[in-house]
């Protein structure tokens, strides 16, 4: 770059890198500037959200310090506020949602790309995308009014047979009771039922990402598998799934991001309970986002600040999850196809 020579004294005997003028056309310069500005704007918005929440949570941090992370109560009268039970509840509900949504999304995506006839394919894609367009409050209502009675039955059945697994236990409830009407409420408003509702809204998002990646599995490799005498399932196993690994991870993480932040559907279904527990079938749980929506309107300045603090925790947690996912996705071959 430094040894720009005058024309004529050619670089015959100088074996060092020459200066090369990239000569970017004006149109490219303008576009590059514009794209750069928008990209920086996104970063600036993210940063300002973080800064805003950080400053808003200052009062709470001054009051509680690090014990905010170890306190599970949210006692309004005594102002003993902590994020522990909220965080545990958030992760629990999201985990239930992902555990239910991902197998459905995976099989849906595989069916659409590998098995469905061409015409049915378009209809199915439209339907699944439509599922993603339904507002989450609708899923909340459907989960609460339509599904909850049945899900409570299922919860009892799971408790009956798998209650010996700690997370599927419901202490104090007798699954074999004859008086079901008096016992049913012990199985309602649980992390499990909230998780099912969230799974409904997460599934189409996961399926869309997976479908997109699966459909890009190289045609040459598909044909190779078929020409060897493979079945469609053989093609899926040897070509589509290895290629689509990043799509599966990417879709799951995108869904997880949504599940962690889901607010209104969970708020409709759950009954707040601030004990730290992983028993997903038991009545009552709480998540960060639903606690914010339930408490926001009637909080003292300190409580409001505590809610902001909780929101900041969720913000950072989601950011970490997505960063890990992006790292996993970018390492694989189909990674370029997914954006998370």
């Amino acid at each position, binding site marked *: 770059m430094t040894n720009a020579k005058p024309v004529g004294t050619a670089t015959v005997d100088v074996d060092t890198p020459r200066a090369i003028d990239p000569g970017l056309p004006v149109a490219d310069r303008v576009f590059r500037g514009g794209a750069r500005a928008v990209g920086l704007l996104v970063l600036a918005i993210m940063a300002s959200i973080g800064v805003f929440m950080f400053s808003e949570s200052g009062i709470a941090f001054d009051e509680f310090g690090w014990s905010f992370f170890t306190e599970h109560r949210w006692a309004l009268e005594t102002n003993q506020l902590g994020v522990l039970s909220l965080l545990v509840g958030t992760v629990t509900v999201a985990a239930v949602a992902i555990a239910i949504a991902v197998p459905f999304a995976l099989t849906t995506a595989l069916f659409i790309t590998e098995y469905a006839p*061409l015409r049915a394919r378009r209809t199915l894609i439209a339907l699944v995308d439509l599922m993603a367009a339904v507002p989450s409050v609708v899923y909340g209502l459907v989960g609460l009014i339509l599904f909850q009675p049945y899900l409570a039955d299922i919860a009892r059945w799971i408790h009956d047979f798998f209650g010996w697994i700690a997370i599927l236990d419901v202490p104090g409830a007798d699954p074999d009771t004859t008086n079901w009407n008096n016992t049913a409420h012990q199985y309602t408003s649980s992390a499990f039922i909230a998780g099912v509702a969230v799974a409904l809204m997460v599934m189409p998002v996961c399926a869309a990402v997976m479908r997109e990646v699966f459909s890009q599995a*190289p045609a*040459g*490799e598909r*044909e*190779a*598998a*078929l*020409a*060897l*005498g*493979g*079945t469609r399932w*053989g093609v899926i*196993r*040897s*070509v589509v799934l*290895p*290629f689509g690994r990043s799509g599966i991870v990417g879709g799951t993480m995108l869904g997880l991001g949504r599940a962690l932040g889901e607010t209104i559907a969970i708020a409709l279904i759950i009954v707040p309970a601030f004990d730290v527990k992983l028993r997903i079938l038991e009545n009552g749980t709480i998540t960060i986002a639903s606690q914010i929506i339930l408490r926001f309107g009637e909080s003292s300045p300190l409580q409001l600040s505590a809610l902001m603090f909780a929101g900041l925790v969720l913000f950072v947690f989601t950011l970490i999850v997505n960063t890990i996912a992006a790292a996993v996705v970018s390492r694989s*071959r189909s990674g370029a196809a997914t954006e998370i």
Partner: protein
Amino acid sequence: MHSNESSGTADDPSPAPAAGTATAVLPEVPDVTAVQPKAEAPDALGAKLEADRVSAWFGDHKVLERVSLTMEPGSVTALIGPSGCGKSTFLRILNRMHELVPSAALAGEVRLDGTDIYAPGQRVTETRRRIGMVFQKPNPFPAMSIDENVTAGLKLTGGRRRRDERQELVERCLTKAGLWREVKDRLSQPGSSLSGGQQQRLCIARSLAVQPDVLLMDEPCSALDPTSTRRIEETIAELRNEVTIVIVTHNMQQAARVSQYCAFFLAEEGSPGSVVEQADTETMFGSPSDPRTSDYIHGRFG
């Protein structure tokens, strides 16, 4: 490097460089597959493949017109002709890859040892196992290692092998494809780490591992450099003693070098592709009976 490679195959004890040694390898073929007993005598050189008045369409567009061609066992049949004359379509009809295109249709029969592969009740997966295919662009499975690539067809067709049998199969197939000496010390590396020519030979080894009776090759060398091309041609010459080979090529010299039988496809303006002339290679290149064939093989068009 090249002379080293070609002499290497010759003094390697296990491969089948010439017709004489190839027959010695043949008897062990049945106990490796044991899936599909061959219809003919055990010393058969592949299977006979007959296309009988095959026509093909994509939607309303007819691309092939009544092609009849017999591909004899123990020989290499070359399909030549300009681009867009239906050679590749014809090749894909021979192992039922044609029907993967949603709008594709066909008429006529393709008989493998006398049985129509399109007859009701014929299992398409079994047909494709018996009639293997090597594609224009090398397509090893990138997520699999070299030896897993070779045995991929076994998994796909549900064949189970003991570990030592599998290793032996990997060595035998890679040797037949002329790749063993180059990769024997790095079988666990991914198939995509090989050069283009090596990848193509890996694909040939992969096709051979499921014991096909026929091997279809769709311009297998068009993406390769001359050295790799020559290696593939040597492989073809060795393989024709155990599988019937059908090769599509744009390279006249290649067709003349590797094939015993030749079919010239041509699609004249506005009409579907058809076989203008078919004959043994010597006649085809020495004294073609149709002036259009003569023009094409002498490079006057196409």
